[in-house]
């Protein structure tokens, strides 16, 4: 039902918000105040999204019902890729990009190439239903 899920995030966010107000007013230090404000928003944003989703779907997922039987969850769960080379290629692109921060801009050329290749690969893989 995603109700408890949203409540966890909303209550955590609310606590960070209250703590942020106390901290900011009491200390007058802006850095921590801004970061706690960010934490408040990071609780609220997904929290309200899940609450909205719960309201829309009326919350009746088998994983949220205490009396659900195994058969209630029958059917396709989701589609899961069993293997893909593109996370590796994308990761290596990021690796070389970070090396460019240290060893010089020319590293950015192979990095860009790898990242574009990987993103094209990801897209094509998703379109065709996946391939190594």
């Amino acid at each position, binding site marked *: 039902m995603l109700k*408890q*899920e949203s409540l*966890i*995030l909303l209550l*955590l966010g609310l*606590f*960070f918000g209250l*703590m942020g107000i*106390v*901290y900011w007013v*009491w*200390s007058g*230090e802006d*850095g*921590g105040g801004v*970061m706690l404000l*960010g*934490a408040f928003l*990071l609780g609220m944003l997904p929290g309200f999204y*899940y609450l909205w989703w719960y309201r829309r779907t009326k919350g009746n997922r*088998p*994983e*949220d*019902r*205490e*009396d*659900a*039987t*195994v*058969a*209630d*969850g*029958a*059917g*396709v*769960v*989701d*589609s*899961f*890729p*069993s*293997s*893909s*080379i593109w*996370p*590796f290629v*994308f*990761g*290596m692109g*990021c*690796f070389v990009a*970070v*090396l460019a*921060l*240290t060893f010089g801009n020319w590293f950015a050329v192979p990095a860009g190439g790898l990242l574009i290749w990987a993103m094209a690969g*990801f897209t094509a893989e998703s379109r065709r*239903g*996946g*391939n*190594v």
Partner: protein
Amino acid sequence: MTDLIERPVTAAPIAPAHHGDDHGHAGDHDEHHGPSGLLKWLTSTDHKVIGMNYLVTSVVMLVIGGAFAEIIRAQLVSPTSTLVSLSQYNQLFTMHGSVMIYLFAGPFAFASLANYFVPLQIGAPDMAFPRLNALSYWLYLSGSITMLLGFLVAGGAANFGWVGYAPLTSAANAPGSGADLWIGALMLTGFSAIFSGVNIVATIFYLRAPGMTLFRMPIFTWNLLVVGILILLAFPVLTAGLVMLYCDRHFGTHIFSVQGGGVPLLWQHIFWFWGHPEVYILALPFFGIVSEVIPTMSKKPMFGYKGMVFATLTIAALSLGVWAHHMFTTGAVLLPFFSIMSLLIAVPTGIKIFNWIGSMWGGQLHLNTAMLFSIGFVITFLIGGLTGIYLASPPLDFFTHDTYFVVAHFHSVVIALVLGGMAGIYYWGPKMTGRMLHESWGKASFWFMFIGTQVFTIPAYIVGLHGMPRRMGVYPNNPAWQTLNIWESVGALMLGIGTLLFLVNVVVSWKKPIIAGDNPWDGGGLEWFTSSPPPHHNFVSLPPIRSERPTWDYNHPDAPALGHGKHAGESSNEKAPV
């Protein structure tokens, strides 16, 4: 290839004889279609393969970080040792801390065992985003390599401490490439952590099996949910801080330098706003591991299940309000606020300690290696936690800040986590490999590690109270200090021997296998309902889920019902014919 995965609908347990039989399983029909060998390692998006990759890589990092520690301790045996130069010493303690925190403890905690067991414990076929999960691993591995590359560049590795305080990290004070590699490595591992956090939270919110309500999830999975949320709150702050630091070093900004009107203290705020939640990001998964091991090995359900969950949520809430207790001596932070918040965290942590003791109380204790490591964890963590209460008090902190007392405090905490991690490996290793780890080697390893921890930390507390500062490669020629330092080094050596014995155990257990079976400990979580190791996409069948230990309910239908909610205890009525 992409598979549309159907949920298993029968409640029959997997017959052990069918484990190796691909044709008998609906769930692993595609196992022999995937690549094998090196290509499997490079391309797999299976959470179990990625979890194993994380586990092996992070244990390698533990060994590397441990080797740095041994060199540091060898240097400190004598007050004026010249084993390494002072410049090399600075690099060593920086990289020891960085490797252990960023490359071992974090990834081991929230990516290796978590990756492997969160989907299994909630009855999911995989993590929610398998390809993102694989990307997390590659970013982690490349980040680890990037950080260690520092030793190969001119000027050596980063040398400003694992906390990277401004202005030590400025272009003038740390001119070499080592500092940039350190920053780049933390960006890579930071994004890796953020992606893991997204994956864990989405998996737990969306892929639970029918009947697996939030309050029937095992404590380990609960803790990982909270860790996932904390990662999303904390890691982006560090990554943003690192971008600012890089801009200061290379693009002429003055965010952390006084000269241009910047504020060096801002780095400490940003770093610890990540750094203290990070302590709980590291600790909570290990709390989760021992919360699985202790009830299972005591033949009892978890004592105070809901109390454990709310204690974890309380720790998460408070963890964002304690960051500046690392900064008491700067004289520029709000002492009462951070002191009160830090002291408050002792309450939920204390609840956990009492619940672990409560879970053992009156149980049939099975003191095997996993249980010994769990008890060792509780004792060592308690020492670290209690000394943490002293440090949360500003007057005591002023006295002990930057001394070996602090070093001893956080080593009690983090080595406790290593003991908890070992408990996890001994407990879940049989599920991951299908083979038991040998008990005799395991127990020898435990005693070396447990006693070694205390032999290392207790003299460190004392020498800290005598005033010995941390991060010094040489120290005043004081016989009392030297004696205590020699004891610390003996403890560190024992820890090293314990770790080596563990590695020997892995090799011995691999060469002389003892077959584990599906459920060697009579465990209660869903992970014990499937085969060891589990098939591709994990489950061929699922039991009815009516409590936080559905496998135990299924295997012990006549036992008194345990559970939460009005439909608890109905499992025996729903049992399908086997």
